[in-house]
């Protein structure tokens, strides 16, 4: 339930949405009235400045579009979409973390993270076996980074286009599990801190990479994220990782990643998120029949 700020009494989300819609319509009407000028007014000479050159009308600053910072509903696409790690200031790894990281055979190079692309025959990125991307990789991988938030009275559902999957972010006050079942997308709870939606997560299995370069984690990983809608069309996201089994210090917070509100996913033909599955039978057949060298995709903007 969303608390009513004035009375502290819970209201249903439907009523809140209706009230917000009426406010938007009312505000829009005011904005239209304020920015509409009589025809010819812009060219009318000033009576005060008679005999002098009429001054051009002062440009009106663009008025911000109204929005509710507690409304995260919609499809959001990272802008620009790009390969990311939490940051390039990765903290030192523990011996356990080093041993796990030493087994990574990445298909990309990132010298700041100490990663050099391996020969293709050695690649062992779990995505290449159609394993789930998991969290946070789905938010740091270029074909991911497209999500849909749907808010209900008890949770925020975060749908991810890649793998056509989701995670539940519970907002009903429950706590994280003490001994959670390990999952690819973990277990999450969320709360509002002013206009910032803070998400705490645990319960991750250790089978995923954090990013395209193979940074590793354990099942003790905990994440803290912030989502902040800064205007109608933009939302900032940050992430901090705390995994004492893998890293000697917390990693993060990341810089603010900007998501843009979009009418539909840029990768989908329709308004729904794309059904973007990795299907092993298709992948195995692709390598068998097409016999490529396994190149990745060049930027979607093309190289004409």
């Amino acid at each position: 339930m969303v608390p009513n700020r004035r009375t502290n009494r819970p209201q249903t989300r439907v009523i809140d949405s209706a009230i917000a819609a009426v406010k938007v319509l009312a505000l829009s009407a005011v904005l239209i009235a304020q920015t509409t000028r009589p025809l010819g007014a812009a060219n009318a000479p000033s009576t005060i400045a008679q005999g002098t050159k009429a001054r051009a009308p002062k440009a009106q600053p663009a008025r911000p579009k109204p929005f509710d910072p507690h409304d995260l509903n919609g499809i959001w696409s990272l802008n620009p979409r790009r390969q990311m790690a939490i940051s390039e200031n990765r903290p030192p790894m523990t011996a356990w973390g080093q041993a796990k990281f030493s087994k990574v055979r990445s298909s990309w190079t990132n010298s700041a993270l100490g990663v050099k692309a391996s020969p293709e025959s050695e690649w062992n990125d779990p995505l290449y076996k159609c394993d789930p991307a998991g969290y946070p990789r789905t938010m740091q991988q270029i074909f991911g980074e497209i999500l849909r938030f749907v808010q209900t009275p008890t949770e925020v559902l975060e749908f991810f286009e890649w793998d056509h999957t989701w995670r539940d972010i519970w907002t009903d006050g429950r706590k994280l599990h003490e001994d959670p079942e390990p999952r690819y997308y973990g277990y999450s709870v969320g709360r509002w801190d002013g206009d910032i939606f803070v998400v705490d997560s645990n319960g991750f299995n250790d089978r995923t990479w954090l990013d395209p370069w193979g940074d590793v984690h354990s099942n003790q990983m905990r994440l803290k994220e912030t989502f902040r809608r800064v205007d109608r069309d933009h939302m900032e996201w940050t992430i901090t990782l705390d995994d004492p089994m893998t890293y000697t210090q917390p990693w993060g917070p990341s810089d603010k990643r900007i998501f843009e509100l979009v009418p539909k996913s840029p990768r989908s033909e329709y308004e729904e998120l794309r059904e973007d599955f990795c299907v092993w039978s298709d992948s195995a057949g692709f390598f068998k029949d097409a016999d490529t060298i396994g190149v990745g995709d060049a930027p979607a903007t093309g190289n004409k």
Partner: protein
Amino acid sequence: MKPKWASSFALVAGLVMAGGSVLAHHGAVGYDYSVPRKTLKGKVSQFTWQNPHTLLLLDVEDEKGVVVWTMELNNPGNLVELGWTHSSLRPGDEVTVTFNPAKSKPNGICVDVFFPNGRKLHSSQGCVQGNLKSFDELRQLDK
């Protein structure tokens, strides 16, 4: 000094499903970007709209008969961003394609498709520029 475009090429989607055991059973084709791009006219026999990469199979007639050329395109999500849809091509369509050819097989990459009405669709899969000789060289570039 790394050219400006290099960083953008590093920002690519690695949708290659390279299970080691699968790759061990066939050799790599390899694409040589040092040879000129090739242009062919053919009839679409198959347009497979799926991950990891959409495939366009073209029946191309030459003096010996019909050769099936396989064009490796982006994954469907990337193609949508480039203006394609799942029905952009259908079996029987007559098109002209320009691409970088593979060294020893009738395969192509970095494909432009030209329709009889003048329309063009581009697949950026495997496109490289500058002095790079192969996509492997691109992967070695630092992010």
